[in-house]
Structure formats: C-alpha cells, structure tokens
C-alpha cells in the first residue's frame, strides 16, 4: 500500500535522527552551538509536525490516516509502515511539545553536551516512531530504540545513585518488552498467513485462550512501563536520579507509550480477551491510585514523591480503559495527555529547584517562596493541576473516567461503587502529599540549604517552559474540546469494538462481577463454554 502523498510521518521520524548525525562535528564552545542547533532542530520538528497534522489530518475520520508503507526487510516481513489515528496523533503532538521543551530545559548541561543532545534527538525520533508504527516489529524496534538513550542519559548525567537506577530501568523495561516481541511473533504466526501488520493482526480471529495469553504478555510489558503495581519500583529510582529534562520526557511521554500500547494492542487488537481482563485492570488501577498515593506521602525526596504521584495518576488510565464506555476510554486518553503536561511541568520545576539548591530532600528545603516567588507560583499551579482542580486538565480527565466508569453497564453496581469510592479516596490523598510538599519546600522561614546568597528566581526561559505546559493544562481544563476533538472519532470506534467483544462473550449485558479476580468463572456459563472451546 503505497500512498502518493508526501511521507510526512517518515520525515517526522527521521528528521531528529538525521539532525543528530552532524552534532559530533559541531564546534563546541561552552556547549552553546550545540544547544541552539538542537533546539532549532526540535522546533522545526515540532512545527513541521503541527503543520503536517493541520494539513493532512481529518479529525472526523476514525481510522488510520497519513498511511505510508514501504517494505524494509521483506525476508522477515518487516515493513516500514506508519500511520496515525486519534489514539496516536495527540500523543505524537504531546511528545513533540514535551521533548522540545525538554531540549530547552537542558540549558545547564555542561558535561559532554554533544552526546547528551544526540541522545535526546534519538529519543525524539523513537517516541514518534512508537506512536506511529503500524508494524508490530517496527513498533518493537522503536520501543527498544527509545530505551537505550534513556539508559545512557540516566547513567551519564544522573544523580549520585545513577548507575543503580539506570541498570534497574534498563533491565526492568527490556525484560518487559521481550513480551512484546514474543507476543508479536506468536500473533504473526497464528493461523498461517504470516504478517506483522497491526491491522491485519487485529483482523485475525484468534481463539479466546490464545488471546488471553497474548493479552497477559502485553499487559506484563506495558505494566512495567505504565507502571502497574507491583512492577513500578524502577520508576521512583529512575526519576530521582535522572536529570530534569530526562524526567520530563520519562514522565511526560514514556509512561504514555504504555497506555497507548494498552489501548492499541490489548483493547483494540485483542478485544475478545479484554472483557476478561478489564475487571483486573480496574482493580490494578485502584491499587495503583491508593497504594502510590499513600507511598508518595511518605517520600522525602521531591522527585520520588512526584514519581509515585505519576504512578497514582496512571492508575486512572487503567480504570478508564476498563470502563467499556466512550467517556471512560476518552477520559483515559485525556488523562494521559493531561498527566503528560502536568508531570513534565512538575518535574521541570523540581529540576529548577535542584539546580539552585542541589538537594531534593524536602527536609532540607524550606521557605523558598521568599526568594523564588515565580517558581513558587508555578509550582503551586502545577500542583493544583495535579490534584485535579476544576478548570485544569487533570480534573477533566479524572472526571471523565469517573463518569465513564459509573455509567458503564459492564459491571455490577457494587463493584463500580467500590472502585469509584477507593479511587476518590486516592484523589483525596493527592492534595495531602502535594500540599505538604508545597508547605515543606516553599512556606515558612528559609532553611539552611536555601539560604544561599544569590539564589535567583526563575529565569525568563524557565518561566517560559513552565508556561508552555501550564497554558494547555488550563486551556484543556476550561474547554476540554480542545483535546477531546482530536480523538473523539477514534475512541468512539474503539469503544464500539470493545463493546462488541463484551457482547460476543457474555450475551447478557450485565457481567455480574462478584469475584472480579476470576472474571471468566463469573461471566456466566455461556462464556465459560466459549472459553473451553
């Protein structure tokens, strides 16, 4: 399938890679040339991206657009096939925005800047590749391609314990992503006609047992990345050691790749297994929210606290995916976008704090508001967004998920009530840890670590970065259609498909989920019979 139009997606993926090539040859006086060069590459990429979608993307079409496909290594069936739909397009823009801002936030990198910026650009490419890939093998390649720069960035430019954190990150995520490859091969070989094309794989009809196994494999892979309890412990370590720009991308984009994967592989391609796993996802989501929120409160390290907060917020994505309603699924996507912006802003601001005070321990920080009022104001705004205050994007995302889950007809009322109430308890916990963070860091009298002469407030560049993230947050919060219209058409189609899966398995609409852990046994005898086949 060759398209005649201009191959925008290929250009978008290759541009940062090509831009990274001449970096080693650039003169490097105080790292200035490199950073301006990289920043302009990022900006060009981002504007091209906006232009390409503006020109070629039709918001009302649910299916794939801007499709391009070229055989790459035909011997193993690998195609360079790319396309975007409503699930991936907003996330591509999100990664463009966050990564470009992360490049602008890397101003202080003095050590080996050329390597640093090269890796950042490679990461830029890989993120877009993950979201745009339409070939399972290509998806896996892009997924792996993005792991390596993160590892190197943490291992080289991280904090004191960086090697431990980087190794943990790479082992965890690489081990997880093996499952993607295994599942991809299993699905490709299933039923004779060998293909890696995602659409063709989605159209194949698998036996339910096979789908369940595949679903489990993907869930493991994405569960590490999202992360889902108990596979999450790499994240706080990686965040607390990573330099701020890497943290921004890690929390802002990389976690979303897992959410995207869950929507794309688990929910879309394996829609027959989805009903069996959905209650488990909902429960895992609740566990994520409550457990991570509580743990966040006990953290002393600023970035660790926000890492746990990320885990809690990604729990909502799971509940949204499990909801079987358009509102819930689009809420999940909105929550990903919104958390991408919020987490990037908060991690960036904690980086700003760290650059000045050289500590992330909240016990040592204190009373910074007097010297850094702008950072204080921005931090407060970010925290408010994170704790889902109405008028900011986090609220719309979590509200849609709540509403979507309560209006779902796939679960019994008791189960829904328990999930919603526990998730709400998690939402009450989020102001507890965020406000106590603000209190410890900013309010009161200046502490020793902060009483440094010449501690300057945010520079215009830094304020600009934070505002670039906060303005969309408030924009989406006040007028959610800004975000929702980019994916509405796709999520509606996706949910319809998932509901088909639901109804083919359990012919009665109500799944009586009394023992959610054993969904198949409570689906009714008909479903069991189906499973035995």
């Amino acid at each position, binding site marked *: 399938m060759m398209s005649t139009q201009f191959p925008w997606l290929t250009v978008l993926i290759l541009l940062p890679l090509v831009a990274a090539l001449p970096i080693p040859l650039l003169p490097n006086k105080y790292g200035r040339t490199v950073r301006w060069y990289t920043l302009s590459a990022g900006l060009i990429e981002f504007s091209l991206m906006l232009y390409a979608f503006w020109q070629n993307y039709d918001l009302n079409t649910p299916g794939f657009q801007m499709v391009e496909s070229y055989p790459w290594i035909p011997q193993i069936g690998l195609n360079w096939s790319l396309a975007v739909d409503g699930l991936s397009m907003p996330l591509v823009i999100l990664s463009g925005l966050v990564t470009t801002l992360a490049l602008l936030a890397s101003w202080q990198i003095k050590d080996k800047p050329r390597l640093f910026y090269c890796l950042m650009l490679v990461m830029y490419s890989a993120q877009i590749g993950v979201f745009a890939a339409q070939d399972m093998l290509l998806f896996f390649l892009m997924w792996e391609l993005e792991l390596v720069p993160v590892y190197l960035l943490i291992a080289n430019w991280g904090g004191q314990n960086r090697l431990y954190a980087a190794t943990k990150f790479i082992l965890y995520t690489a081990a997880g992503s093996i499952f993607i490859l295994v599942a991809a091969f299993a699905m490709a070989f299933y039923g004779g006609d060998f293909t890696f094309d995602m659409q063709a794989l989605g159209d194949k009809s698998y036996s339910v047992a096979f789908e369940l196994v595949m679903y489990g494999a993907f869930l493991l892979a994405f569960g590490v990345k999202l992360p889902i309890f108990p596979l999450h412990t790499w994240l706080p370590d990686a965040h607390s050691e990573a330099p701020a720009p890497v943290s921004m991308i890690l929390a802002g984009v990389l976690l979303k790749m897992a959410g995207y994967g869950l929507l794309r592989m688990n929910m879309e391609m394996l829609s027959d297994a989805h009903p069996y796993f959905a209650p488990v996802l909902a429960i895992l989501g609740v566990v994520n929210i409550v457990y991570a929120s509580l743990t966040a409160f006990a953290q002393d390290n600023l970035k660790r606290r926000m890492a746990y907060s990320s885990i809690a917020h990604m729990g909502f994505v799971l509940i949204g995916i499990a909801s079987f309603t358009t509102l819930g699924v689009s809420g999940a996507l909105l929550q990903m976008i919104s958390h991408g912006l919020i987490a990037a802003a908060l991690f960036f601001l904690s980086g700003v704090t760290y650059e000045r005070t050289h500590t992330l321990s909240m016990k040592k920080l204190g009373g910074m508001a007097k010297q850094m009022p702008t950072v204080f104001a921005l931090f407060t705004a970010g925290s408010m967004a994170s704790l889902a205050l109405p008028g900011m994007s986090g609220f719309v995302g979590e509200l849609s998920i709540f509403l979507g889950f*309560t209006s779902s007809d796939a679960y019994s009322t008791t189960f829904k009530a328990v999930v919603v109430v526990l998730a709400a308890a998690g939402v009450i916990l989020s102001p507890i840890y965020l406000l106590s963070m603000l209190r410890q860091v900013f309010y009161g009298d200046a502490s020793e670590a902060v009483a440094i002469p010449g501690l300057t407030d945010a520079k215009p560049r830094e304020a600009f970065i934070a505002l670039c993230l906060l303005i969309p947050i408030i924009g989406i919060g006040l007028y959610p259609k800004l975000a929702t219209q980019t994916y509405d058409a796709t999520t509606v189609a996706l949910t319809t498909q998932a509901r088909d899966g639901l109804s083919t398995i359990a012919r009665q609409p109500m799944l009586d989920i009394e023992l959610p852990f054993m969904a198949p046994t409570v689906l009714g005898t008909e479903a069991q019979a189906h499973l035995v086949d």
Partner: protein
Amino acid sequence: MTQFLIDTVWWVPLYGLLGAIVTLPWAVGMVRRTGPRPAAYFNILMTLLALVHSITLLLATWALPVLHLDRAWLDFMDLRLTLSVEVSSISVGAAVLATGLSLLAQIFALGYLEKDWALARFYGLMGFFEAAMSGLALSDSLFLSYALLEMLTLSTYLLVGFWYAQPLVVTAARDAFLTKRVGDMLLLMGVVSLSAIAGTLGFGQLGIWAETAQLSPLVATLLGLALIAGPVGKCAQFPLNLWLDEAMEGPNPASILRNSVVVACGAYVLIRMEPILALSPVVLTTLIAIGAVTAVGASLVAIGQIDIKRVISHSTSAYLGLVFIAVGMQRQDIALLLLLTHAIAKALLFMSVGSIILTTNTQNITEMGGLAARMPATSSTYIVGSLGMVAVLPLGSFWALQQWATTVGSHLMALMLVVLLVNSLTAFNLTRVFGLIFWGQPQAKTRRAPEVPWLLATPSISLAIITLLLPLMLNQWGLLPEMAVWASMPTVLLMASGLLGVGLGGVLYLSPRSPELRGEGWKVLQNILAYDFHTDQLYRLTVVFAVRQGARLTAWFDQYVVDGMINLMGVASIMGGESLKYTISGQSRNYLLTVFVGVILGIAWLGWAFLN
C-alpha cells in the same frame, strides 16, 4: 435593554475574573514602576461594574419569571455537561450581595493593606474569589456549582496562605484546603452518581426529577450524605469545622468575605440541592444534627477565644449551623434570609475587627481596652454589627432568627433551645468582646490608638447604614411577617435570651472589676473551650494518624518487599554467577568429571523413564 442584561449575565462573574487576569503583570512583578496600586484600582473598578450590572439586572428582572440559560461545556455522546445560569431575584440578589460586599471589602483592603508589597496579588485573588462567588450565585447546574466551590477552595487556600512566610499560615492554608477538599470530593462523588442516576445536573431539572424519583432508601441516603459533605466542609460545620478558625491567619479583608459570603456559598448550594436531600429523611436528620452540634459547640467555643478574629469566626460556624437546621427542616426561605442578614452583620463585624487590628497591631483581646472613646466610628460599627447579629433589637438577624424560632423552633423543643442558646451565647460573647476591647482602662497597645483612616471608615460606615436599613428593605420586599405572627411567645423568648446574654456579659465584662474568673474549674473549662473541645486532637489521633501510618506502612512495604524482591533477584543472579565462576577452574579433570556425572545422570533418567 432587559434582554441585553439577561444575555450578558455571564459577564457578572467575568468582571472579577478579568480583574484577576489583568492584575497578573503587577502580581508577578513584571510591572514595578507604577507600584501595585493600579492593579487594585482596576479590580475595584471591575467589582463596581459587576455590582452595577447585577443591580440593574436585579431591578430589570425583579418581576420576571425565573430564566434558565445554558452553554455546553463537555458535549460527549450521551453526556452533556452544561454551564447553566439561572436568572431569578434570588440568584441575582445573591450576586448583588456577593459583589457588593466584595466591593466594600476591596475598598477596605486598600487602607488595610496599604503598605503590603504584594497588594496586587491580593487584589488578583480577591477578583478570583468574587468571580467564583458571583458565579456560584448565578449557577443553575450542580456541576458548575461544584467546580466553583473548588475555585473557592483554591482561592481560600491562596488567600489564607497570602503571608506565606508566617509560621501559622503554613498549616492554616493547607488545612483549609484539605478539609474543604475532603468535602468537595465527597460532593463530587455525589455529583458523579447523580449524573448516572438522574441523567441531569441542572438544579431545576433535578428538582423535577426528585419529585418522581424512585430510589431505594440506602441509595438516597448515601447520595444525600455525599452531597451534603461539600457544604459541611465549606460552611465549617462539625466535623470539618476547624479550618475556618485557622483561616483567620489570612489578611482581614479576605476574612470579611470568607465569614460572610464564602461560607454562605456552601449553604446556598445546599439550599439548591434540597429537593434531592429531601428524598431521604436520614439525610435531613443528619443535617439537623450536624447543624445543632455545630451551632451549640461553636457558640461555646467562641467564648473561650482570645484572638479577636477567632472569637467572631466561630460564631460564623454557629449561625451556619442554624442555616443547616433550617434546610434540614425544609425551610429554605428562612435559611436564605438568615444567610443574608448574617452575611451583612458579620461583614460589618469583621470590618470593625480589622480596623482594631490595624490600629493596635494585636489580635489578642486581653491586651486591649478603652477603645470606645478613641475610636468612636469603629466602636459604633461594632455595636451596629453586633446588634445586627443577635436578636435583641429588631435589626437584621432578629427577623431571621424570629422566623426561625416561630417556624422551625416551634416544631421541636430541642431546636428551640438550640436557637435560644446560640442567641444568648452570641450576645454574651459579643458583649464580652465589647467590654474587653472598648470598655475599661486602656492598655499599652490601645493607649495611642487613633481612629482609622477614611479608606477603612467609609466602607464600614456604609455597611453599618445598610445594616440599620436592612429591616426596612426586608419590609419593602415583603419578607417581614405580620405583626400578629411575630408578636408571639417564641419572639419574646428569643429577645429574652438575647437580653440575658447581653446582661450577663455586661455584668461580667462591663464592670470596672477585673473580669477574670478565678479557680481551677474555670481554668479547665476555659482551656477546653479555647482549644475547641480538642477537636484537633481528635483529628490527629484518627485521620492524620491513619494516613501517616498508612503511608509509612506502604512505603516500607514498597521499599523492602516489592523492591526488595527485585533487588533480591539481582543479588541472587550476581551470587549465582559469582559462585558458578569457581567451576571454571581450567583443570580438564574437573571438566571430565562434570561431563561424566552429567552423562550418568542422563542415562539414569532415560533408563528410569524407559522402565516406567
């Protein structure tokens, strides 16, 4: 003209918001050359516009039927979240009250915060505050009201945390936010389930729905309890009451609004939700119980306070408790009337309190005395405000409390006792404060106290005049009962209770003798009251303890169990590798031995399998 005013009713909240946004350059320090004053003037101008707009609208739509306006916000498949506005005399009247008091408070702040370096930030926050309040007054959708209540929570947090370097502000702002947020979240849960059950969130449609709704008692009760949790937090009712007391750490002009109209906003939402609450008798009883406990408890606690702002703020909780009881008895008209009279009187009291704090630089009433002669305007506003608060003379709250007593109170003896107790305790307390501040001998901090400048005096005196005129206005609006109705036993009892409070207070605190009550018993009682019946200890031992220990537990679990497993795997593989490396000895006999053993084992296994 009327149509134009109705179509532009959206602007009323937007004025305040616009003021807040335009103030930003001054607030963040981008504009320094002009000083913060222009920002303040602009906000006052915006508030004036909002007031004029809402008054004109009120006059224009006075006789018109209730109007509803809708705008879609999140329009998604079967879900439509709308931003709806109601134009009625009550909603626009509430907007007039909110913007009017906001205007007075902002003029007051111009004098009160004259030398504060962050004046622009303060005005930005006040604009935000006002926008949320007037929006709440006009809102016709539970969803919009919820969102605006959260905006109020945020602005309370920011306003209480205004002087963020002060030690007590640190916890006060956080507690205010958290307490209200707990209530708000429960309210949100109610809103979410209501949208699933009723399919609409407009107050009007909800009222219609509630008439025919068939809910099981359990669902109705849970729903109602979730819905009242928001107002309970917002109105500082037990057990979510402590934040208001702590919030007194914020600047006084914000306290004027907070104690008069902001708390009223919570009750206003409660009143709008009444048809749904009435679905469950348990919820109504809960409302009455919460209201009664808070009314009596807060009135008692107020007596033990020595911080001038806290003394007055506790009585806010008490009066809102009476409002809760009225809503619980399904008398929304009385609830609204009490909210109105209380708001005006309380705002006036807080203005005079602010004037005193500004001139004496202290909030401790035991350090004051003899101010009556030195600050005549302030003392008269205090007296007018106090008289407007309690039922002694036929001023504002007298009429509200009188109606309360004749209708609600006469239903149930216990409730009658509650209102009598609240009235007499409040009267006693206000007399006590009057005696300590204005009477007696001047002390070090009050000896050289001058009268306040005109920026503080003008709004106070204007509001005092309004307070005095309020009965006339009520009469004009036909809100006063017939002579025959009000000249009854409850009225007499009410006035008697007020006079008793004033008299007792006068005997103890207006006499030249020292008003201290000696003896251990009194001290213990005083301490119990001064520490709010140790409610904060209750929190500390339950919720705070549970969250803190829970957090420590999960953090421990996370570090040692979840992460420990992973690290154990890492250590195990390293150990495995380390120990296996000793098998690589380089001596061929060892390798041969290994191969030999391996082959034997293999054959044995095969043979065993074969034999089986």
